[in-house]
């Protein structure tokens, strides 16, 4: 038996909750499916502050609570413990939860399934398979949600913002941070963050250094590292946290054969967050693993507007579903989202660079025709931090033309 709703949102993180709140407030029948026992997504286990609107003073759990209350208050049905398993039709999903299996059909689906960090195996770090190996996500849940014990000395792999969050969690658990290790030549986190780690916590931030092997049988005894100049060392530790290196949780997108963007590996979307399948939208970290919760929320709100337009036009079969042209980021730019473009797009673009860039300018072209040039308000752009490109040039795009390229000027 199939139950029908107006809009199905998959994932109750910031993106999905904001989308659901807006849509419910506008009168749509919205159901949010969340496979965890509690709504809120990743912020549920981010004990640190840095969430909510400026000055970003909320802790993750407080932010998660507010977003959930707002969605529920607006009339969205937020169902936790329910997993969207697979598609049973273009806009229908098979689900399972404690109340059993159910197929849900909708007039629009919003994928807001988030992202995860690559664990040790995916990074092909050789060595033994001891206990004490974490990602930030697992570590935060272990310490902040379950009060579990971790080891006493931890090496944090990565030195971006999320790596410092991991280091703080290690300290909150009463353990020592041996070092943060990054293979980048410069620490990618904001300078103040790196300085604070070095000076206040006396935690070394080792740049140009990669982890080459995990040691120890049963329990971790240390990690082997190699510096770019060839020196190697063993850092004794009983815990290692692999941070960052996010990948989108794109399982449903792939099962649905939605087009993926090769740069983000998430579903390809245009500026209205439309995927390749009419009626299916996507927002948040699944599009660009991972940006801030504020970005995810902003996209949730944006997707809600696009969904409303789609519903107002009558949905599948009647409404217009432009697919736009591909929007490609040229190296050393790593990725851009949205990654398709139509002339009416109004959502700012987020990009990442593979290498540090000084005084970067972006240059947008289509078929050799310049569309836009923009100096970014940064002395240096660094990897692992977002760059933003305005959408104020999209009206110049020829929807019948070739791909649009974003390159460094």
């Amino acid at each position: 038996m199939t139950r029908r709703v107006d809009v199905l949102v998959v994932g109750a993180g910031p993106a999905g909750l904001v989308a659901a709140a807006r849509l419910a407030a506008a009168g749509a029948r919205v159901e949010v499916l969340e496979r965890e026992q509690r709504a809120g997504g990743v912020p549920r286990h981010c004990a640190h502050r840095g969430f909510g609107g400026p000055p970003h003073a909320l802790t993750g759990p407080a932010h998660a609570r507010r977003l959930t209350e707002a969605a529920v208050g607006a009339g969205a049905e937020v169902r936790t413990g329910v997993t969207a398993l697979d598609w049973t039709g273009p806009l229908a999903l098979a689900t399972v939860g404690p109340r059993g299996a159910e197929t849900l059909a909708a007039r629009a689906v919003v994928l807001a399934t988030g992202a995860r960090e690559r664990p040790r195996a995916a990074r092909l770090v050789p060595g033994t398979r001891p206990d004490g190996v974490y990602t930030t996500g697992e570590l935060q849940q272990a310490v902040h949600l379950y009060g579990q014990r971790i080891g006493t000395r931890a090496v944090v792999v990565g030195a971006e913002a999320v790596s410092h969050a991991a280091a703080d969690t290690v300290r909150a658990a009463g353990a020592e941070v041996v070092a943060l290790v990054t293979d980048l030549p410069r620490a990618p986190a904001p300078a103040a963050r790196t300085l604070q780690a070095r000076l206040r916590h006396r935690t070394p931030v080792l740049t140009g250094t990669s982890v080459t092997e995990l040691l120890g049988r049963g329990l971790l005894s240390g990690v082997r590292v190699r510096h770019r100049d060839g020196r190697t060392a063993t850092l004794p530790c009983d815990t290692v946290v692999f941070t960052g290196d996010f990948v989108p949780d794109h399982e449903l997108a792939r099962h649905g054969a939605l087009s993926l963007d090769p740069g983000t590996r998430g579903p390809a979307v245009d500026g209205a967050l439309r995927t390749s399948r009419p009626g299916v939208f996507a927002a948040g970290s699944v599009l660009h693993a991972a940006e801030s919760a504020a970005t995810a929320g902003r996209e949730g709100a944006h997707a809600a507007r696009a969904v409303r337009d789609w519903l107002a036009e009558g949905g599948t079969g009647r409404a217009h579903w432009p697919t736009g042209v591909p929007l490609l980021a040229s190296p050393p730019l790593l990725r851009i989202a949205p990654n398709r473009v139509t002339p009416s797009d109004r959502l700012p673009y987020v990009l990442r660079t593979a290498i540090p860039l000084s005084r970067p300018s972006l240059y947008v072209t289509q078929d050799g025709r310049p569309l836009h040039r923009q100096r970014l308000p940064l002395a240096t752009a660094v990897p692992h931090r977002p760059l933003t490109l305005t959408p104020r040039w999209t009206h110049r795009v020829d929807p019948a033309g070739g791909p649009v390229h974003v390159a460094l000027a």
Partner: protein
Amino acid sequence: MTVTASGPLPAEPYDVVIVGAGVVGCAIARRLAHHPALRVALAESRDDVGQGTSKANTAILHTGFDAVPGSLESRLVREGARQLAAYADESGIPVERVGALLVAWDEEQLAALPRLAEKAGRNAYHDTRLIGPADLYAREPHLGPGALGALHVPGESIVCPWTTTLAYATQAVRAGVDLHLNTPVEHAGHHDGVHRLTTPRGPLYARRLVNAAGLHADRLDRSLGLDDFTVAPRRGQLVVHDKFARALVRHILLPVPTARGKGVLVAPTVYGNVLLGPTAEDLDDKDATESTAAGLRALRAQGRRILPALLDEEVTAVYAGLRAATEHDDYRIRAHPAQGCVTVGGIRSTGLTASLAIAEHVTGLLTRTGLDPGAEHPPEPVRMPNLGEAFPRPHQQPERVAADPEYGVLVCHCERVSRGEIRDALAGTVPPRSLEGLRRRTRARSGRCGGFHCGAAVRALFEEARGREEARR
């Protein structure tokens, strides 16, 4: 039902003690459990069954088509494959008969295929068929370019090695075999017809001994004064790929062995992943189950040739197993009547397949050491939880979820493991004593996220159950 992991051991001599609870030792225990008059114990140095080579292999249920014709291994693999297929069916162990293709990438390999078909015939396997490149690429459209042909071996299957070992152990323990974990046998002495086995938990006594200690079988034999073989570990590293890779391959893609080496295989798993490996490295260290940068590099280079798209998918695990190779080109299974002992040595790369036939063979040899097993009475059948993708999982069975909503509450999302399955595993006859043990019983935490989403929740369920267990004691 007795499973111990600490404290002193029983002082009464057992009729038979089996040393080593790998797939072979567990199969032998299960076989001896057919004789209710026998008092049998299984002694294992680690905290779980199947923690040695039995957990870390390529999980293929072989036909034995490429064994050495006339060898003991050839016969036991052939018989064991048949027996395990039937046992798996009865016990709920997932098996998929996907068939294998030995893919020839050059003229030398192509020329070897007819010889392999002929050798298969001498191993009483007659279903092989040579296929040309068109047929090959029709069967395997994602195969890398340049393959010249293949030998199709339709009987080769994939199986769950973890459930197999656990099913044997569960059935044996339920039928009265005592399982003593954390019990490394450090020394064996034989006096007046009784073995005194030295362990850190105190002595264990046995009238008959079965040495199924895998990589360490030679050492145990030496303490009995036997010097029949030396184990030389041969490491095999393997890379497991995400479930998205499963659609890329339909058969087990085997390398064609030639004078210049053995190559690696690409094989689906019953869990819906794809394996790439193994390496073959001769080592001295019997604990060297770590992976190496060189090994992984070599595997990925070969994988890129065999199935290029495989390398675009995420890696979900890397592991290594050690084959118990010896100087002999066959299994080394011997009865030593004077020592009241049977040694099961050299079970190199086919022991999972052959396990049930090895068990039967060993039981026969035990009677030759003077053991009277008494009447035979088959133990109760077991029904194991299904870990395979080709069969319904609990959350996919509406009637099970309706009867017990815990099967609808997914905890490990990548592998879709429900809280009900984790609860059942923790309350099993042979319960897990580590998160790894829980993983082998449920698949929890073995998916693409490596625990990012579920690791802490799974650990909480595990620690809660352990806490309850300790409170009870």
